[in-house]
């Protein structure tokens, strides 16, 4: 008998009495059934938001960026704030799938599928903002380095904004591939269970003729590792490059070397918070509490308290550096962040990002689902404010007092943001309906070592003496 033993100190990753069949049944049956009322309501609202977003963007593209509140002094407002926010959220997925895979964190299996989906949708949402913040979006392709008859004229490789184009598109492509390659065996499972022709055909197409042979699995595993290897640096690079948009500038509050690590930590922070928000809803609605356990939630809360503290240290470091630098513009920039007309955004950020995650030092709160849910939203509000603080409150009072200004968003800006929520949740609802929200194959992989019922079977072994156990093992195959 092959034995994989896992210590009892580790809590089970799958609760309840599960067999492989039961796992398949639990995860695939929502796909095969008609969705519930909640799904329809949620989907309807998402579509409504999406339509409002499309209308807002149409309004802006048709009449001009002037329908937004950004201005001469504050050239980026909600648009880039939301961009950075969504990109940040898009970090958790790849972190979970790639880095945690490389670190062999078994608990990732329960959440990686949804987290990766979230990443992809979040990056899709994020991408809208740099596209539609352009004054002439129809000429947006100028940023691509394609051979042309204009000289040829190339983009400016010095510009951090151009690096963004590459960073985001690479990240999106790799994340999508990673996610999709993980889905293939699961699609095959659905195909094999399919009772309607259409479903069989569509999932058959989607599963690329997966047959589950050893060769299939071997290649699949190899691809996963390669993609994990490729995406690992991406997790760090994307937000590093996003931070370069600011760090390579001359604006006090932007021009700082702390930004790359600070942004990456913040991104992971907000990404995990978003995963929490989504999974707490999904496990409730799709009754997947046994797959997304309190253990999972707690593990992610630990990441949140860690990254939240890193972010907090970064905030304090910024303040220290402003003082220590002796540069009056830098000092004033932070003074205006904290005490200027935008003081509320700074303090909202500080409260949500630095103070509130500290509650997660308490184990009871880490394992408290409603509290975690509220905190996950608070964290993302805080992270939104962080980006707003960095972008708007650095620009609004910079070098020349004569050009200082103020900024408030207008309805098309807010509408655009809401629209990306629409896009995100529309995608997510479709994902929850048509895709296995938990990686079936990967759950099965850990089931027999980390499933609750299997762990219980180990109890027998625990009671045995060492000699007895060794003896049994020696003779098991004979």
């Amino acid at each position, binding site marked *: 008998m092959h034995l994989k033993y896992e210590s009892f100190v580790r809590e089970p990753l799958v609760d309840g009495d599960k067999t492989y069949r039961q796992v398949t049944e639990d995860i695939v049956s929502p796909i095969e059934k008609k969705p519930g009322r909640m799904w329809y309501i949620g989907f309807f609202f998402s579509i409504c938001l999406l339509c409002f977003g499309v209308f807002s963007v149409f309004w802006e593209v*048709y009449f001009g960026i*002037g329908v937004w*509140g*950004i201005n001469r*002094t504050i050239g980026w407002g909600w648009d880039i704030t939301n961009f950075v926010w969504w990109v940040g959220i898009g970090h958790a997925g790849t972190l979970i799938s790639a880095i945690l895979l490389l670190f062999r964190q078994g608990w990732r299996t329960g959440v990686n599928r949804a987290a990766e989906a979230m990443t992809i949708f979040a990056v899709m949402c994020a991408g809208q903002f740099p596209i539609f*913040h352009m*004054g002439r979006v129809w*000429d947006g392709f100028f940023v691509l380095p394609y051979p042309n008859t204009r000289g040829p004229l190339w983009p400016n490789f010095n510009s951090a904004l151009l690096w963004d184009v590459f960073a985001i598109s690479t990240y999106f492509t790799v994340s999508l591939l990673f996610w999709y390659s993980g889905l293939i065996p699961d699609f095959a499972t659905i195909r094999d269970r399919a009772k309607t022709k259409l479903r069989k055909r569509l999932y058959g197409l989607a599963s690329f003729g997966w047959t589950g042979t050893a060769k299939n699995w071997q290649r699949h595993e190899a691809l996963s590792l390669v993609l994990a290897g490729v995406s690992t640096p991406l997790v760090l690079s994307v937000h590093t490059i996003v931070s370069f948009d600011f760090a390579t500038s001359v604006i006090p509050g932007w021009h700082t070397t702390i930004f790359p690590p600070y942004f990456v930590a913040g991104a992971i922070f907000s990404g995990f918070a978003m995963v929490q928000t989504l999974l707490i809803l999904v496990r409730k609605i799709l009754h997947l509490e046994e797959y997304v356990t309190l253990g999972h939630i707690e593990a992610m809360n630990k990441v949140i308290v860690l990254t939240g503290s890193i972010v907090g240290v970064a905030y304090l470091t910024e303040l220290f550096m402003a003082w220590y630098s002796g540069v009056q513009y830098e000092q004033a920039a932070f003074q205006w962040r904290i005490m200027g007309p935008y003081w509320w955004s700074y303090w909202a950020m500080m409260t949500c990002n630095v103070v509130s995650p500290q509650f997660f030092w308490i184990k009871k709160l880490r394992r408290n689902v409603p509290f975690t849910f509220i905190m996950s939203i608070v964290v993302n509000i805080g992270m939104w404010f962080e980006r707003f603080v960095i972008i708007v409150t650095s620009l609004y009072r910079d070098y020349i007092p004569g050009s200082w200004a103020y900024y408030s968003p207008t309805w098309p800006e807010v509408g655009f943001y809401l629209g990306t929520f629409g896009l995100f949740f529309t995608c997510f609802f479709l994902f929850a309906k048509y895709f296995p929200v938990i990686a079936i194959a990967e759950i099965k992989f850990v089931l027999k070592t980390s499933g609750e019922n299997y762990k219980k079977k180990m109890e027998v072994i625990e009671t045995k003496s060492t000699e007895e156990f060794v003896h049994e093992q020696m003779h098991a195959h004979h």
Partner: protein
Amino acid sequence: MSQKQYWKGLDELNNTDAHKEVVENEFRESLPFDVSDSLLGSTAPRRDFLKYLGFSTAAAILAASCEMPVRRAIPYAIKPEDIVPGVPNYYASTFTDGGDYCAVIIKTRDGRPIKLEGNPKSSITKGGTSARVQASVLNLYDKARLRQPQADGKEASFDAIDRQIKEALTANARPAYILTSSILSPSTKEVIAQFLAKYPGSKHVVADPVSYSGMLMANEASYGKRALPSYHFEKAETIVSLGADFLGTWLSPIEFAKQYSSGRRISAQNLKMSKHYQVESVHSLTGANADHRATCRPSESGAVAVALYNAVVNGTVPSFGSKKLNEVITKAAADLKKGNGLVVSGSNDVSVQTVVNAINDKIGANGTTINWGVASNYKQGIDADMVALVEAMNAGQVGTLIIHGLNPVYEYHDSKKFVDGLAKVPVTVSTADRMDETAQKVKFVIPDHHFLENWGDAEPKTGFFSLQQPGIAPLFKTRAFQDNLMTWAGATGTYADFWKQYWMGKLGSQANFDQTLQEGILEPAAETISGAAFSGNVSDAIAKVSANKVATGMEVVVYQKVAIGHGGAWSNNPWLLEMPDPITKATWDNYAAVSPLRAKELHAELNGQNEVDAKKHVIKVKAGGVEMELPIVVVPGMHNDVVAVALGFGRDAKVGRAAASDATKGGKNAYPFTSFNGQTVMYTAPATVEETGKLYDIAITQTHHSYEGRPVVHEFTAEEFAKNPNALIEERFEEIGKFTALPWSEGKKEEGHKEENAGEMAEKMDEGFRENGTMFPNYDNEPSHQGIHWGMSFDLNSCIGCGACVVGCQAENNISVVGKEHVAKAHEMHWIRIDRYFSGMPEDPDSIQTVFQPMTCQHCDNAPCENVCPVSATNHSSEGLNQMAYNRCIGTKYCANNCPYKVRHFNWMDWNGADCFDDNLYEDGRRDDMNDDLTRMVLNPDVTVRSRGVMEKCSFCVQRLQDGKLNAKKAGRPLIDGEVKTACQQACPTDAITFGNYYDKESAIYKLRQKDQKERLFYVLEQIHTLPNVSYLAKVRNTDEIVAGNEKLDGMMNEHI
């Protein structure tokens, strides 16, 4: 035809077989397509199919997507000799508006005037202009202009109107009156005289919308002539202005600004500088430039003049409640007594002006700074005459009233009485160019030409002539005012003929006439300054002034804005409406300007938090039975008991779309606050103010007032500067000196900058910092210094903040008008802005010091905007220009964010119809006429009209630079310094802008930076190593103390207002 044969080679000459074959198979390759008959029938090869598919798809896409609008350009059937398409023509002419005068040069392109420049040949305006002069070309294309004469509100022919008027004039027993504003034109005066002679009993009444009759009458009493003298601010060492805004709106601001600035051009070699005292109630442009400024109540202004008189004559120390006021008067009196003083007063009170005349007499100004030998003709109106006319009208004693250049229904202090009187005059005529308030109430409207359509002349000062030639034929069925009079007087010929005869007669020969017309100016060789004997009754004047009670409550002051002035057609000029007021930086509206202390009491406190809010508290101002609701704009430096309201707003809808006012837009008419005191019109009145709880949006371009003590502006007192002219060099070196040499380079001393002299420091900063202030290699800076490197310098001492450059730039560079709503959103497009900073204690108006800093693209050689653009739409030229490629710009706005000077302007909306979307043109009801086909005739064809979604900014007028370079190249010589001027530089009335090729060692900009002004030179934010090509010269105030940045004195900085 020649029989000669030409051959391409030996092959052809010998005509070998091989050659024949080659010729036959010239196109040896078959066409890429299979075009045989069997094409459709045959199984086309896959490649061909793809080719066809590709081509047809591409063709279909091209055909479907590229909708090319048909634009018709009609060429000349017979081309005029002097019009070459694409080449501008220049004509010397004269700008007049009432008595406002400026000698100009009209730039026409393809027959349309598109820009006005100052005429440097004029000894009066010396090439300077004002915002209004710059904007006047837009009035030519004003859509609200009348296109034909009107009778009883209906279109009518000139003949019909002429017949009726002639009949009335001959038949009517009651006399005819010609009511005009001040007329500078001698030939027009002649025409009027002829008319008056033809109709005995008829009279000519002169009135001015904003009256100077107090001065005229005082001068009559003091010197026996009802005239204004010529002032010479350039000769004055001490200038005392009692409420006269001589740099902004008083009498002849362009002339005075030129003179004034020449007396204040200080350098380390020439430390002489005039001293300017200002006592006023509001915060005027002139007050903002003063060295010593104190405020007084408007009702105290007479007492201030008396106190100054007593201080000058007896050395009496004044005893006003305000310590600063007493101090300023005492000091001013002491300085005036040193000689070369000049006192001017903005009061329209005869007694006050008499006292001022007495002071000028006592200090010997007559004959030194005041020239009585040459009279200024700018203002000739006498209020009492106008009042008498209105009385006569009401009494039914006026038969015909011809109104020219005035709009009394709007401007007269008792509008109702005028309207009533008008109804009793049988024949009323207005020559208004639009259906203004008066034109709507008269029987006949015969619109006058715009000055750019008309012949004419001006005699701004006696003996100083200026000819006016048109830049374009009249656009509409309009007729010159002079032609009206000549027609009605039965004269033959037109005014143009008369004018020509008049000048031919004066000039003698056609050659003289041509030359004078070309130069535009006919002036005596030199102005000899002579005095006049003062014979005024000072004691009587003092008694009268003292009899006036000083008010106790609030007082309202009616003032003119630098841009809009008295109103008139300016009220409908979008360029002027959008020009930020020099002091308040507000656009598109008038408002109640009150001091911070008063605003606080009215719950509209100014602080760092609320300044950004466009919503302003509305107060109700009551004075002399008139009530007006006006939003508060807080102006540091206003007297605490004064509320100031600008003229020129609150116009009727027919004045134009931009001017039209109602409760939600366009401001209020402040003329009803004026009153007649029995002698002259008064522009102040006791008032009460109360809160209304309402809010009203005011679009203000600059919402922060203090420069926070930052080294973006440098100020010194004259004394400090004289003591250590190198202070600024040392200060700069302290900041960047460390980076002027590499740490390991030879000669680098440890913390050694103290030992170096200023010359070395300046030199190091000039070159060393450029090289060594960065870790990157420097490719731009060729040590040879050959070719061209453009540079500009703003002299903060000369800049008075008048805004002429802002409008001049707008006219030259087709800068869009964005309208009030978008100005409020900080979406304005001006390529050059003037940052105005206040320092001092907000609650103490006398402590406020003001500095104006023109801010435009700095054309950084290490530009932060250039390296962040993802598509290289903004890049650097080899001549140091930071360029914009509009077609390449995709509008990420990254460059604007990364610009430390915030001088990049984005096309937020489709301001001008240049973008390809239908029906998305931005319209707000007020600025829309800018996009009318008529108004667009003002556009400069040399400058691209930018479409929506692209960034734009100052280009250093690259079209002018290019033109200048090409001219030099054609002439086969290097560019001469001063040959090209930027629009802002040309517009500037104070020569505050120096521009040229920095690599040319003979250029003014090189000399200024390297020699003459190196002590005052600084670059804004030079420590961030942007290497700007725009430099500044520090402001030197001839005062005791610099308030800005002083923690004890600068409350504006401490409170971050």
